[in-house]
């Protein structure tokens, strides 16, 4: 909080309420929360990933067979690696405690580095103790991105809605609606691209119901959202049993979207499969994240959208139509989530089943908060959840000392920790969830 008012005019007394009061600054203590949490996790790492680690090698494959040059697999002794990494973690925690005693908060890089090292230590420990102590790092990361695709679209939908002041609990319903429509339309037309388009329309339609009730009729947005989720789940479930299952060749066998490989670039180890060996939906994801970010923070549209979500009355007094802005943004958000839903039926599995979205709309909501209502933040948050999801399935396959039920908890555990404010307090748009009534 630096001083934002440059020196007052001569003769002007200091303004009351100026934020640069040194007394007020020193009175605001740095919280013990982060250093204590870091210390606790560092100790866990030291005991479990360090001292209790098995003395054998964990092997991490880096290259896939399609890469244009091969890197050797990384072999790490689980015990040595665990000790080194957890020592580093203890060091970082100690440094944050030292900073705290000096009255300074832990910097952002420290927390991020801590998380990365902790995950690395965990990986070495888990793989080292597995029946087959070897996994493909490239596969792990590429799989994380794939699993994150619907989450990214869902949280982008959340960003678009919440930034304009409407809480979108209906992401789950929009994903499910998109998945169902993509399946049935692509099956009937035998064209996945038309299915993709139809998914966007379906998501937008679900969103329009949310927009209509919450903006025009001022119904509580959370309630409309929850009701929509139940409605979409019911309708798709009903149509699945009555229509799709009756003639699944005709209604539930959509042609999938194939991965489009970009020559040369797709053969770069690790990065290649992530960025350049994706389906259309995957590429759209990267584009959507960038477009929404640039749009929100660099354009006139974004400035207005954010103003409507923060202080709708101010926007109104400047001639911006608050409710129209909200309506169209929520609709757009629904279309984005609908595209995310098509991932389930056009990319992941080539057919629709009941509840195929499996609660990912709610994880997307968590990613939105963890990512601080920022498209890029939400992208990385979704990636983290995708990583946790993928890790648990891979680790279960290679057989670990940890019961698989605990591993299955991982994505949700990460969600809870993230939303509980592990990375500081996040502040959403001020007018989110509050309907705007003139006057």
């Amino acid at each position, binding site marked *: 909080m630096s001083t934002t008012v440059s020196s007052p005019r001569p003769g002007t007394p200091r303004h009351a*309420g100026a934020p640069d*009061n040194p*007394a007020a600054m020193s009175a605001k203590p740095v919280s013990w929360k982060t250093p204590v949490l870091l210390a606790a996790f560092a100790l866990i790492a030291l005991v479990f990933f360090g001292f209790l680690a098995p003395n054998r090698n964990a092997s991490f494959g880096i290259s896939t067979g399609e890469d244009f040059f091969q890197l050797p697999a990384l072999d790490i002794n689980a015990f040595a690696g665990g000790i080194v990494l957890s020592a580093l973690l203890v060091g970082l925690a100690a440094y944050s405690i030292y900073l705290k005693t000096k009255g300074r908060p832990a910097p952002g890089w420290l927390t991020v580095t801590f998380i990365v090292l902790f995950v690395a230590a965990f990986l070495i420990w888990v793989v080292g103790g597995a029946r087959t102590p070897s996994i493909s790092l490239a596969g792990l990361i590429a799989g994380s991105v794939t699993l994150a695709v619907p989450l990214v679209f869902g949280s982008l939908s959340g960003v678009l809605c919440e930034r304009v002041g409407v809480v979108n609990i209906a992401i789950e319903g929009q994903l499910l609606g998109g998945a169902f429509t993509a399946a049935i339309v692509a099956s009937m037309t035998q064209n996945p691209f038309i299915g993709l388009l139809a998914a966007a329309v379906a998501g937008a339609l679900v969103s329009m119901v949310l927009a209509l009730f919450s903006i025009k009729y001022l119904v509580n947005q959370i309630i409309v959202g929850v009701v929509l989720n139940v409605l979409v789940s019911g309708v798709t479930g009903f149509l699945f049993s009555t229509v799709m299952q009756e003639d699944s060749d005709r209604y539930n066998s959509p042609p999938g979207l194939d991965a489009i490989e970009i020559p040369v670039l797709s053969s770069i180890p690790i990065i290649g499969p992530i960025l350049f060996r994706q389906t259309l939906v995957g590429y759209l994801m990267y584009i959507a994240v960038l477009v929404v970010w640039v749009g929100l923070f660099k354009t006139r549209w974004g*400035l207005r959208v954010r103003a409507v979500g*923060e202080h709708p009355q101010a926007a109104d007094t400047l*001639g911006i139509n608050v409710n129209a802005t909200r309506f169209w943004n929520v609709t757009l958000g629904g279309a984005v989530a609908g595209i995310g839903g098509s991932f389930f039926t056009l990319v992941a599995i080539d057919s629709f089943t009941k509840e195929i979205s499996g609660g990912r709309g709610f994880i997307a909501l968590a990613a939105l908060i963890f990512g601080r209502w920022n498209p890029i933040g939400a992208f990385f948050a979704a990636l983290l959840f995708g990583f946790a999801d993928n890790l648990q399935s891979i680790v279960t396959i290679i057989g670990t000392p940890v019961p698989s039920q605990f591993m299955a908890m991982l994505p949700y555990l990460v969600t809870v920790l993230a939303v509980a404010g592990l990375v500081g307090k996040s502040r959403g748009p001020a007018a989110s969830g509050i309907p705007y009534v003139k006057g």
Partner: protein
Amino acid sequence: MVRVLKLELRGITKRFGTLLANDHIDVVVEPGQIHCLLGENGAGKSTLMNVLYGLYEPSEGEILLDDKPVSFRGPGDAMAAGIGMVHQHFMLVPVFTVAENVALGAEPTKAAGFLNLDETRRRIKDISDQYGFDVDPDALVEDLPVGVQQRVEIIKALVRNAKVLILDEPTAVLTPQETDELLDIMRQLKSAGTSIVFISHKLREVKEVSDTITVIRRGKVVGTAEPSAPTTELASMMVGRAVSLNLDKAPAKPQEKTFEVRGLTVVAPNGQHVVDGLSFDIARGEILAIAGVQGNGQTELTEAILGLQERVSGSVTLDGKELLGRPVKEVLKAGVGFVPEDRKVDGLVGTFSVAENLVLDLYDKPPFAKGISMSPAKILENAKARIGEFDVRTPSAAAAAGTLSGGNQQKVVMARELSRPLRLFIASQPTRGVDVGSIEFLHRRIVAERDQGTPVMIISTELDEVMELADRIAVLYKGRLVGIVPAGTSRDTLGLMMAGIPPEEHAHTSQAGQRPASTPDAEGDDHV
């Protein structure tokens, strides 16, 4: 090059349901004039301006610009026509920078809708230089003091080439010095050819800066006046009957000091010390007024005494007994009467009847209750007595308190708190949003309580009220006591204290016209 506008409102009527907020109002604002709309809270001034600004559609009547009728479908139309408005509650997005706030709605853009904030920064700098505003375009609005935020609002209007600028109660949030600076800015704007509609109920400011005054009462224009008209005449036009502006109170006869505050500190959830080591005492038969700009710890101070704040340290004693750490009910039982700053939130239950509101703190004690049952007859009897005594204008004792006017609601709160024997009386903003006629009455009741030998603490952000009621004045700034000065201290001195400058530093500032070298915060406690 200067486009001047003549603005005329002709027969403007605005109804909200059955409520007639504006009744055939005619106002003409001549080009390059400061035209004041004077009226009490709730007289319909803001409604009229919202009609002019396109936020409300008038039920009848028309708006003329340079004698041509216009109709505004929204604020965008009004702005395009050259009308700008600074609202009473600022219309600024707190998390945006100054430049983003100024650009919003009329954004200069490059190709494809990309923002061109450099252009906005340049405009802000031009206007800042012209009027000496000194505003950093890249500062976040939420970090700026209110006075600077107000300038951002003015810049917003000027960037849109406003030729008529509406200022809605602009001085309500300012210290006296900031008010003087604002009046200077208004004069500068006028000389640059901008007409100003100045909405206020503060007579001194109105007389100082206006060219013409239109007085509005209960939605109607009741007359026009020259700024040279005597204050009492303006006040009686505003209220509709003769009012005495001076409270002729007898000098205080302070007795023993029964209320003592020592080192009172309140820590906010964010760790800030919102009340920081306050020490003062109040004698029986004395009124101590706590002055200060809103948000300098007043709310937390009263709530701490009442037991409504957590994380409080220090000591508060009444008649030798410690109040801190005791539940609210016990504090009230110790004889503390409390009028909270927001009667609608903390003072009344709007949907309860007047009679019920009058016994909110006594409902469970005889004679109003017997065992687990209440005695409606006694409650009604009490209500009738209080309504008569405090001249509460209500259709009946059974009317919902929320339906009364602000002044009458405040009388209900005051009647309840003063209707039992008190050992300490605390009133926060006792006359906020109350009509001038009721103010007089409420002030007399407060002085009467003092004369009965009760220590009285008044918290007010209105300097006029402080100067009128106080026997001693304590000034709060950022939770600290800048000093305690006797009644009769000059308005200038108090104003500087409200900006955090202790009394003995004033000699330097007022003579040399320079800002004090040191920040005042460190020495705050030395003058107690």
